[in-house]
């Protein structure tokens, strides 16, 4: 297993350049080119910020801004998007690149890492644009921003663990990919992104905490909306789940990696 990681390290340049080329290749044939890089996340942010602020004007407790609800949603969405993009793409990354894996010899683990890098790049863009929009809305949360990298690390670990684990199994049992698309739909609504947890009956609130993303998303909301540090008690459980899923993912990938090309 050590060799697997040594070989991966030798491919660091390839991973970085692939993230870059995949990113640029997305826009290379469009007239507006790089502008699309900004337009996509901007549109997403504006939808939540402008439209929802008109429809849902109710103030959230403890926040002054009239835009508190859209900011609440955006804070959650940014974490969720990072998570779901990695899981979704990792699920199919080996299948999509099946032909390549059969013809070229390179560390397979590079593929989910390229997915991760791409999702991270999108996250950063989304974040910058979101922050600019926040500025226009008169909301500048900078007191707890230094906690954001920790939240990102947790989100990425959990997503990579789950994505790699299921992505590996999906090569052999293709129903897993289909099933996960459905599951992710439910998962979104089982995470307090659009609603606040306290609107639920108390016993359901506890159930909500079984979702490892709940604590993480609430962390994003703390940092980006309430301008305060995340609640570390809520992060313990997601950390443990992330570590377990990452370990399981690496074990199952390690066992499966040689038989993968047989069935691709």
């Amino acid at each position, binding site marked *: 297993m050590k060799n697997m990681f040594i070989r991966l390290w030798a491919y660091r340049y390839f991973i970085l*350049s692939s993230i870059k080329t995949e990113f640029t290749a997305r826009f*290379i044939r469009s007239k507006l080119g790089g502008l699309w890089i900004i337009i996509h996340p901007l549109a997403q942010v504006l939808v939540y910020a402008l439209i929802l602020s008109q429809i849902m004007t109710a103030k959230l407790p403890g926040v002054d801004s009239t835009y508190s609800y859209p900011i609440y949603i955006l804070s959650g969405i940014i974490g969720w998007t990072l998570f779901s993009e990695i899981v979704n793409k990792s699920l199919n990354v080996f299948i999509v690149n099946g032909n390549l894996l059969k013809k070229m*010899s390179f560390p397979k683990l590079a593929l989910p890492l390229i997915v991760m890098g791409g999702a991270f790049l999108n996250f950063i863009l989304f974040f910058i644009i979101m922050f600019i929009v926040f500025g226009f809305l008169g909301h500048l949360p900078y007191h707890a921003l230094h906690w954001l990298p920790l939240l990102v690390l947790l989100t990425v670990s959990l997503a990579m663990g789950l994505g790699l684990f299921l992505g590996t*199994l999906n090569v052999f049992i293709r129903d897993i990919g289909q099933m996960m698309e459905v599951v992710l739909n439910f998962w979104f609504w089982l995470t307090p992104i659009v609603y606040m947890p306290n609107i639920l009956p108390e016993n359901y609130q506890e159930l909500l905490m079984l979702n490892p993303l709940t604590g993480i998303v609430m962390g994003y909301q703390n940092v980006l909306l309430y301008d305060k540090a995340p609640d570390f008690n809520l992060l313990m459980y997601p950390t443990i789940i992330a570590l377990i899923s990452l370990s399981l993912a690496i074990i199952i990938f390690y066992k499966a990696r*040689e*038989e993968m*090309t047989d069935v691709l």
Partner: protein
Amino acid sequence: MNKVLEVKNVSKSFKEYASEWARIFSWFGFNFNPKEEHHILKNINFSINSGEAIGIVGQNGAGKSTLLKIITGTLKASEGTIQVNGRISAILELGMGFNPDLTGRQNSYHSMGMMGYTIEQIDAVINDLEAFAEIDEYFDQPVRTYSSGMQLRVAFGVVTAYRPEILIVDEALSVGDAYFQHKSLNRVREFQKQGTTLLLVSHDRGAIQAICDRAILLEKGAVIKDGNPEEVMDFYNALIAEKENSTVKQVVKEDGDIQTISGTGEVQIEDIGLFSEKGKKVDYISVGESIQLKVKIKVNQDIEQMVLGYVIKDRLGQDIFGTNTHHYNKILENLKKDDTFEFIFSFCMNLGIGSYSIAVAVHANDTHLSGNYEWRDKALIFNVINTSKEAFVGSSWIEQKVEVIHV
């Protein structure tokens, strides 16, 4: 000479399980018997020294691609070991992994990155690569605007930017134009001199015999022949022509040369010889001499139709000239058992100096691939010597008139 590749007892089977969960549990030591096991390769053994050029031949489905994938490491052998000393580069598919929207240059970086080179290593050779590909300003154009030949140029440049210990070329080379084929072949030969081993997979007899000094024939997942390319290719051709109840045998002649005879045996070649104008059997023939090739055959069984063909080959086994009675409307019909015929081909021996062989085949139609009654490689060996013409080089004699005019 040191071994660069050693393939030991390699077998490959693809397993099918009743449920994929059984496969997954089997990784963790649970024993599930696969529902079905397809054996693609069976107990393959060979080793290759540095600087050798090996041709791998076999019919479709013989296991060539699987073997190459195991050697390059994209597939894992079910049993046995592969030991590789050094870097392997492979052109398994033209422009594999090229992104059509990126330029040749960007794709070169990307592909070489995928081969494990660092950016510094790629920077060091990118200019040479561009010069080698010779596609000028196209190098900075998206690959989707390339012709397949141009893609091959870049792909070949990428794979050979650094000299690998083992270079695998799978058919792809035949796509390029003649100029680039020569250019790439030169590079391959240069690498070979420096110790690169070449593995060439091809159905092209000419390419295998021109480049390789050894050939390996795969059939139904097993190595059935490993040796001199000419001998292996003869056997392979016989194998292709082989139909039900046909036989292939190779006879070692007194001089150590190997003759391959195959066919279903309805017709039998009794005698073959080259005769001079005076009717004398000869095996040394002067350039330009008029000559007769006589072939006697005997019919062993009633057949509807029969064509006889022959081909003259040079000492490398490359075809020099060949024809058959179909093209001269001399097809024999309704042959009866025990009929005998003599075929006489008259021509001038306008060939260059050297040793040649003649292969003869009797078959039902205009190619030896269907209804092959008997096919005899190296049925006859003869030499061409120059006794009457001016000195010349090359494989054929072209009558000359030379004039020099002082202007």
